[in-house]
């Protein structure tokens, strides 16, 4: 016998809907989040970390003459359009214009600060043209090319006055008196000393390090690196309890009786947790950006990319945690499985990086190593005995281990791409060069693949969790 609907009881104004359900789950997740003491410890630790970073002092070293010399040497080749992270010195060699320039006198203009990244210089520039191959340069050419390097513009010429005598011109020798202002990118490459706790702990070598490199390391440490890792680890611990708490006996029934489909409980919990972690990551990244900006005056916003990168990575970890939570109903299991999965991603990602690096090494083995300005200024290390020994062996990317790693990496969600893309942007912003830059610039890494595969894997874990949860008897 089918019973007619009972409608005579006073209806309350219940209008269940996904939006209202989501708001309720969001508020529930917030209270669960707020309840986790470890989270507040984490926030305290992060505040301390940033306070320490803020205690840093960043002081420019001297080095104007070296950078002026560099700019003069660079006049020998037309470097427009050269990307030193990809092109090697051999490519540059083809662009030599048959001249050699040097600085014969350089002194700070009176009334400006002594040798530093903001000093204006009075400079005598001398240029010798190789007979037949080269030709005389005009003042305009010098103005447009002096200080222009692939990583940016080191110097700009404010005034130029040619002092070449007729006789000297005849033998291909030109001289100019220049007034040179610091260019927009000089500071990034200028060596600075970096010390913590009001100068008491010096972290750079005596000659200092390029300011851009310091900012890069600091930002990486604070948000995309250690800061982000700690925050995500704590978030994994806190959120691992969400689903098992929700679906434990006695609590689950109170939720299943509500007028919403079961999958919404899972998906909404996932999204709610993700929103809180997004807020935490946002705070971390904005704080990083503020700290490095305040310390160095470099306000390049590339670090913002760490937010989507870390958040997508966490979305994946969270979906693994939710899936494990649904299957095992245990917070500890969810936490351990998630951390183990993370460890696998990390190790395989790291080994995959080695494979890519090995392939790059082989591709460029006979070519001179590409250099950037930051690289050119650093003393070239001699190859160690180990490096010499390893070059005799088969390259890593041709070993069985490498092939296995590549096989595993192919089916994993390529979260390494996300991290690499952030590093690539930061290295570009801060003109960081060297071997790591070459690796980061490898076409093996793309945003599209990192985002696409991470999202796809996240969706698979979540859908599996929803299907299992919907079919299971409480």
């Amino acid at each position, binding site marked *: *016998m089918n019973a007619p609907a009972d409608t005579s009881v*006073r209806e*309350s104004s219940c209008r269940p809907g996904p939006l209202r359900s989501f708001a309720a789950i969001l508020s529930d997740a917030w209270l669960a989040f707020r309840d986790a003491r470890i989270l507040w410890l984490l926030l305290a630790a992060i505040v301390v970390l940033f306070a320490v970073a803020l205690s840093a002092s960043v002081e420019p070293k001297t080095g104007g003459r070296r950078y002026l010399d560099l700019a003069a040497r660079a006049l020998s080749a037309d470097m427009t359009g050269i990307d030193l992270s990809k092109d090697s010195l051999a490519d540059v060699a083809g662009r030599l214009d048959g001249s050699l320039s040097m600085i014969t006198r350089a002194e700070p203009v009176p009334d400006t600060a002594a040798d530093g990244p903001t000093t204006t210089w009075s400079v005598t520039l001398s240029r010798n043209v190789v007979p037949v191959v080269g030709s005389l340069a005009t003042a305009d050419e010098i103005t447009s090319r002096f200080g222009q390097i692939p990583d940016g513009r080191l110097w700009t010429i404010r005034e130029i006055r040619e002092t070449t005598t007729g006789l000297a011109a005849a033998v291909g020798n030109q001289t100019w008196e220049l007034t040179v202002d610091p260019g927009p990118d000089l500071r990034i490459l200028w060596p600075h000393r970096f010390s913590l706790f009001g100068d008491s702990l010096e972290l750079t070598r005596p000659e200092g390090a390029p300011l851009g490199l310091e900012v890069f390391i600091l930002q990486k440490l604070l948000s995309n690196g250690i800061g982000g890792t700690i925050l995500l680890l704590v978030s994994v611990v806190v959120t691992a309890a969400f689903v098992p708490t929700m679906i434990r006996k006695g609590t689950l029934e109170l939720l299943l*009786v509500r007028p919403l489909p079961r999958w919404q409980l899972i998906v909404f919990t996932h999204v709610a947790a993700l929103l809180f972690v997004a807020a935490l990551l946002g705070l971390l990244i904005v704080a990083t950006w503020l700290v490095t900006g305040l310390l160095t005056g470099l306000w390049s916003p590339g670090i913002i990319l760490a937010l989507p990168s870390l958040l997508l990575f966490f979305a994946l970890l969270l979906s693994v945690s939710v899936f494990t939570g649904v299957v095992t109903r245990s917070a500890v299991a969810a936490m351990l499985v998630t951390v183990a999965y993370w460890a696998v991603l990390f190790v395989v990602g790291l080994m995959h990086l080695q494979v890519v690096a090995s392939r790059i090494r082989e591709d460029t083995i006979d070519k001179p190593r590409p250099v950037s300005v930051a690289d050119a200024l650093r003393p070239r290390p001699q190859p160690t005995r180990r490096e010499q020994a390893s070059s005799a062996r088969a390259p890593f990317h041709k070993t069985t281990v490498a092939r296995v790693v590549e096989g595993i990496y192919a089916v994993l969600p390529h979260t390494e791409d996300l991290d690499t893309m952030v590093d690539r942007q930061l290295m570009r912003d801060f003109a960081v060069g060297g071997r790591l830059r070459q690796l980061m610039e490898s076409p093996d890494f793309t945003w599209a693949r990192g985002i696409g595969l991470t999202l796809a894997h996240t969706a698979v874990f979540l859908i599996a969790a929803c299907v299992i949860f919907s079919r299971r008897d409480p």
Partner: protein
Amino acid sequence: MQHVVSTQSLEKHYGPLRALGGVSLDVERASVFGLLGQNGAGKTTLIKILLGMLAPTSGSAHLLGRPVGSVEARRRVGYLPEDHRLPEYHTGPSLLDVYGGLQGLPRQERRRRAAELLDLLGLAGREKLRIRGYSKGMKQRLGLAQALLHRPSVLFLDEPTDGVDPVGRKQIRDLLLAERARGVTIFINSHLLGEVEQLCDRVAILKKGQLALVGTVPEVVGDKSTWLVGFDGPPPGDQRWQSARLVPSGTAGLWRLTLDSAGGIDRFLDEARGRGLLLRHLERERGTLEEIYLQLADAGGPSS
């Protein structure tokens, strides 16, 4: 007749175990229905099927005219599970806010309703206390509040007064009777037979997954043919009565009276008056639910 709950030959098997074996049941609107049975008799399984949490192996069930399991059927249902565990990081109001939101109550209404219910259930003044600081009775009251929050048309309560003190029990009973008066249908699972007797209009006894008995409380317990009588002064001890048999009842001053045959109680009263005895107490003896329940529990199989 409108039935709020209606099942036809409902069966639920867990592998070889038959948790429910063909339960057909109708519950009328605005009544309190008590479901009794020993542990493992299938009470909770039946409730979970009605709430759409479990799928029946066979048979059909309707709740408020809609097939069970549909989201629509759950809209106007309140549920208090047995051994419920409320998330401990909540306070009373914050938990009701979350559940009210899932139920689709607008913010204003769930605030007002939560305050009203916390007050009604004696939890007012504890709004800031986290649930982890609650006593068992307080948790039970809050559990009841969440079931009543959205003014459901039908309530499923599994051991609603579990862990609540006698004063609280009375409050809860009054509250449930008030809900019934508003037209709410209440489905109660309980081991407290006295309470079921006080509250329920109809009861059913489940035994090994089958309905052993269904009916109103008087129907189920039935009237006995014995009476309890008391006289002003002791009755003549070993007098022989023509119309009845009289034996001490166990309570001082009261005798259990078994009427012999037709003629009924009037013949006995005439006889007593004729012997000059003044009647001080006369009460028809009735069975208790407990007696019926224990009889059924002792019997080998379902008696229906």
